[in-house]
């Protein structure tokens, strides 16, 4: 089991979500985050006091999937989230130790 985490541009969320549904990923968790990589921030100016804001708003998507699905998930996210400009984001894949469905108590692959 793997946890696939993707940091994407916020306006790409709907597209990515549809792409994931399309390949059978049934649940995701979405968080609003901020960060930066190579994309530069912007400057805010208040009455002559300048603030450089490095952080840019992004969206983090996490999906717990079975190992067989990982490659297709990566492909789906990449395809939906790419704009070709700096700041598109990254995808991280973690090993998932254990998964439990709280309602039923199922564990492992059945809980995915």
């Amino acid at each position, binding site marked *: 089991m793997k946890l696939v985490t993707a940091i994407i541009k916020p306006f790409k969320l709907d597209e990515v979500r549809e792409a994931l549904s399309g390949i059978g990923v049934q649940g995701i968790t979405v968080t609003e985050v901020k960060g930066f990589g190579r994309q530069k921030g912007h400057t*805010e*100016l*208040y*009455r*002559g*006091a300048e*603030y450089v*804001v490095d952080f840019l708003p992004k969206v983090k998507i996490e999906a717990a999937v079975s190992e067989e699905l990982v490659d297709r998930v990566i492909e789906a996210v990449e395809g939906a989230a790419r704009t070709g400009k700096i700041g598109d984001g990254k995808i991280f894949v973690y090993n998932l130790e254990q998964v439990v469905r709280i309602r039923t108590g199922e564990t492992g692959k059945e809980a995915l």
Partner: protein
Amino acid sequence: MKKLLASFVLGLSLLAGGTMSMAQTPAATASEPAAAASVAAPAAAAPAAAAAAAPADAASAAAAPAPVPNKGDTAWMMVSTLLVILMTVPGLALFYGGLVRSKNMLSVLMQVMVTFSLIVVLWFIYGYSLAFTEGNAYIGGFDRLFMKGIWDNAAGTFANGATFSKGVVIPEIVFAAFQATFAGITCTLIVGSFAERIKFSAVLMFMVLWFTFSYAPIAHMVWFWMGPDAYTGKEVVDAMNGKAGQIWQWGALDFAGGTVVHINAAVAGLVGAFMVGKRIGYGKESMAPHSLTLTMVGASLLWVGWFGFNAGSALEANGFAALAFINTFGATAAAVLSWSVGEALHKGKASMLGAASGAVAGLVAITPAAGNVGIGGALVIGLIAGFACLWGVTGLKKILGADDTLDVFGVHGVGGIIGALLTGVFNSPSLGGPGFVADWVTATGVTAADYSIASQVWIQAKAVMVTIVWSGVVSIIAYKIVDMTIGLRVSEEDEREGLDITSHGETAYNR
């Protein structure tokens, strides 16, 4: 110890309240409409003085029936009073509040609301008397201590206050209430300078001192006079002039408080910014406004309310109130434009904060000028104020080097000074202004030929300089006293955590 102090203060306030209610029984004071009618802006002469004001007075009082307030004037003045209250709560509160970080929002709202309330109470106890009764050229007396004599509850009669027109009066209570809002908002303006690090009790203690020794005297010096009805003949002119405030006697023009309110408060703020010291992290950490939306709401309420502030300062619903009204409209709009243009040219973008600040700058600058200049003059004043105050919050701020958190001096100080000086220019009949009354016996104005812009500007400059020095000195002493007794600043940890939670035990926005 603290509880003891609290009980003591509570007891004192009950005593004050009790005394005030007893002071309403006035003996013979206000029941004499004739005597009351000659009460000017309002010099509440004690009954003995009114009676002793000579048979000549009684004769003229007998000849002309005592003026009675016009219902339109009275209604207008009450509405104006409401508008100025709205300027402070919530206008100024939101304007300032939106500009600070969210962890300090409530502290700003508190400082504004509680300062305003404190000053209004003190006004009714002794402030009004010190500012608007006969005393000397610098301060009034105690004729209206606890508002005594302002109405006669036994007879059901009300003392009158003068306007700027002969034979026109408004109830003195309305004048006193109107002026209470001015005292209140002037003091709350100062709060912007030392926001985000000041101790709440220090604010209140400072306000009591500064209100008593700076606001009241300057209000008296600039605005107190005997009223037009006191100028019954050439023979009394010198005597009547001699009873007025010192700056009034010089002939300084300040329609609604460029000196009394804005320069006065701005200097107190700047001194405070220096003496309280910079915020922790100033210049390094982001201290960006947390809600420019609320700041815009506040600025809009200020603009709307300011029509009461300026037009209400005509003291009646007449043409000059209308002139002040339209000037408040035009100058502000012009300043919004000039600030926005200035910012766009200088920094590349016109900002919401800039537009809101521009509006306030225009309002400040037109305050002394509102009923004293023509419509074109008002537009020019607004235009200049927008650019000047933009410099005030950028270039000048860097030169001064103080952390004037909400740019009280940059806007109110620079705007007030510009407005006061330009009033001397655009008041001239040759530049579309109404000029000033040269002879209060006949109520005739100065002619265009006789008007000297240079000498009027010099008079305005003197008024500005006296205000700056007086306010500066009083502020330095007041802050020092507060610092030596209870301390000005909160601790570093409290400042870092935020004043809302540490000073008031609340958060503005529940997470």
